[in-house]
């Protein structure tokens, strides 16, 4: 069963058309529907082989769901379906302006971090987070534009930039936790 499912695309698993736009409510409800069927708890008392397969299948469904829910992972997966490997961390964008902006954002983050735990630091961080999040959403739109137009090389370039922002948002969260304690 796991093998049967794994030969299909993640979009197929949820009966969704392959593409950038996802209706998360639909994905959510189909995800639950599938897990109701394949979760190992449905196979308690069955043979070990059945249970093992159920675990594999449920794991695959979980992975598919997590991939489609995350903008970065979804973008990478779409390119992978087209035969482009986009999850290579080693690919660095050559867009100098973008890199400069990145460095500046990181410096701003570091400054907030150095100012120590205070409510003003947290407020500054919130403002910064909003800016980063907005840019991230903008990049996602860029990706969608290039991907829909079949411009894979350009789409790949955008994914490399999205990677930066996903990491940056992780930094923001870590910092938030640090400033909050």
């Amino acid at each position, binding site marked *: 069963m796991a*093998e049967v499912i794994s030969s299909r695309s993640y979009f197929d698993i949820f009966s969704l058309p392959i593409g950038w736009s996802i209706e998360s409510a639909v994905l959510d409800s189909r995800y639950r529907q599938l*897990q109701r069927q394949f*979760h190992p*708890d449905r196979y*308690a008392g069955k043979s070990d082989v059945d249970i093992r397969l159920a675990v*594999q299948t*449920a*794991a695959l469904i979980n*992975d598919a769901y997590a991939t489609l829910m995350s903008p970065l992972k979804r973008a990478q997966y779409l390119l992978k379906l087209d035969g482009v490997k986009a999850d290579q961390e080693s690919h660095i964008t050559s867009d100098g302006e973008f890199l400069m902006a990145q460095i500046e954002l990181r410096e701003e983050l570091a400054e907030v971090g150095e100012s120590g735990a205070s409510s003003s630091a947290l407020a500054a961080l919130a403002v910064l987070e909003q800016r980063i999040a907005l840019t991230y959403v903008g990049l996602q739109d860029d990706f969608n534009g290039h991907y829909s137009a079949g411009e894979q090389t350009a789409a790949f370039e955008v994914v490399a930039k999205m990677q930066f922002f996903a990491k940056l948002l992780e930094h923001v969260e870590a910092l938030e936790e640090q400033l909050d304690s």
Partner: protein
Amino acid sequence: MALLQISEPGATPQPHQRKHAVGIDLGTTNSLVALVRSGTPEILADETGVALLSSVVHYATDGSRCVGADAQQQALSDPLNTLSSVKRLLGRGLTDVDSLGAQMPYEFECDDGGMPKIRTRQGMVSPIQVSAEILRTLAERAEHALDGILDGAVITVPAYFDDAQRQATKDAATLAGIKVLRLLNEPTAAAIAYGLDNAKEGIIAIYDLGGGTFDISLLRLSRGVFQVLATGGDSALGGDDFDRAIADWIRRKIGLDSSLDPFQQRQLLVSARAAKEALTDVDSAPLDVLGWHGQLTRQQLADLIAPMIDNTLRACKRAARDAGVKIAEIDDVVLVGGSTRTPLVVAKVAEFFACTPRTNLDPDCVVALGAALQAEMLIGNQSGDDLLLLDVIPLSLGIETMGGLIEKIIHRNTTIPVSKAQEFTTFKDGQTSMAIHVLQGERELVDDCRSLARFDLRDIPPMVAGAAKIRVTYQVDADGLLSVSARELVSAVESRIEVKPSYGLAETEITQMLKDSYSYAREDMAARALREQQVEADRMIGDLSAALDSDAHMLTVSQVQCLRVAVAELRDLRRICSEHRTLAQQIEAVGKASEPFAALRMDSSIKSALAGHTLDEIDQD
């Protein structure tokens, strides 16, 4: 490949006999067993009508053991042989016990495998064995009530338990002869009892402060699906810490230093707990301990425990962040665990979540009730179509990489079951084995995380360096337990995996314990240890000989001579030695002596690996 049988919703595959399944809440302070009768879960009491079983085991002079209130009564007169709160030690290593055990009045000792055990007059016992005693008492209670054999049980664990702690819990059940249907996270169990009761929809927080652990879980409830969004907490923070803080305060008031005997420690703890419980209803509690009279007020108690409660709220914030949920979006808060009876806890939680916490279900019973409902469904008595649990892994899993760093493979709060694969290649020509060190935790450095196991991949077909492609798959099942498998992709050979659990018991040890039913002889342990060392010696003799055959040119003639002699000596000792420690020492000595040689060979293979890498990159460009 066998296909899964999927039955129509609402239909059971075949008519079957009703089976007996229970839910067990194995707590730090108290334990409970519950079962579903006529569709309703109920807590089972003992023959005297008492439901809560104190998680205490007493090892008596006549060789008998007792569990619960009877054992608790021995705590003051016989503290060294009355074991309580051992849940804190489950799945823990010696270093953990050094910090946790310092607060416990027991004598710890390491067994031959390096696992901590407690010295009692009936010999050394592991926390797993003590827990098994408690589980067996509860199982017997259930079988008495059912007048039949138990077919299985759902046992609850703190959501924050790591793999080693979960495995230890499962091992305890195996020792007690109980088939584990599922390890269920305590907050999730509470959510089942609560959610089914209230037919809730929305996001709820389960705040679970027990005797020894704190858990926070955020769940989304929607038409019978309980989806855990995030979980967090502290596996070493609970009401026991409140007691200790109070006891410490009393001790300072009396003017005693911290070198108390076990009896005095007990006295202090007992009156600390009594005062804490009294303060649930009144503003000031009298103290009369070790000949000292005084009182503890609510305000004083608040000063002592507020920092600990603040710690729990920080964990709540982190869980909300992980779940991508704002505190304001949380519709309801459910309080679980006896320590949530402390008024300051209720007040601070209410303030933090800005809503009145639910306390309509008894916080001591709610976990066991939920576990019983889940057990009933898993055993097949109920179709279970109206209930599905989607739980998460509480702590990230990773492997050790160069320089003592960790590469995360599965991030915390990923929905389980989950499976992740990684590909490795060999490092040198003809390499047939590979070591993988799996850890659990959120920190970057290996030293800051908990070591779960070391895997040795063996039987990799010999090829030139970099040619083999080994896919290692890490799978976490619905119980939150990890398993690892590996396959060489070029030749499709299944690699053999040897697991060395860093904590807890090896499979063979469980078998051994069952066979010897707790009274395993020292000789058996020594024999097994010797066998292990012999295997280790064979491994070293083989590896070093092969290395000397191929790479002797890296050393001077006299260096080669030295190592050859060391190998020969080890081979001789391996044949005649019957004392595992002696053999272990010799193995270590040879290992040390060959270290420079190993470093040279490593250096040379890194160079060749890097050389290959550069070529590849040029090719790509």
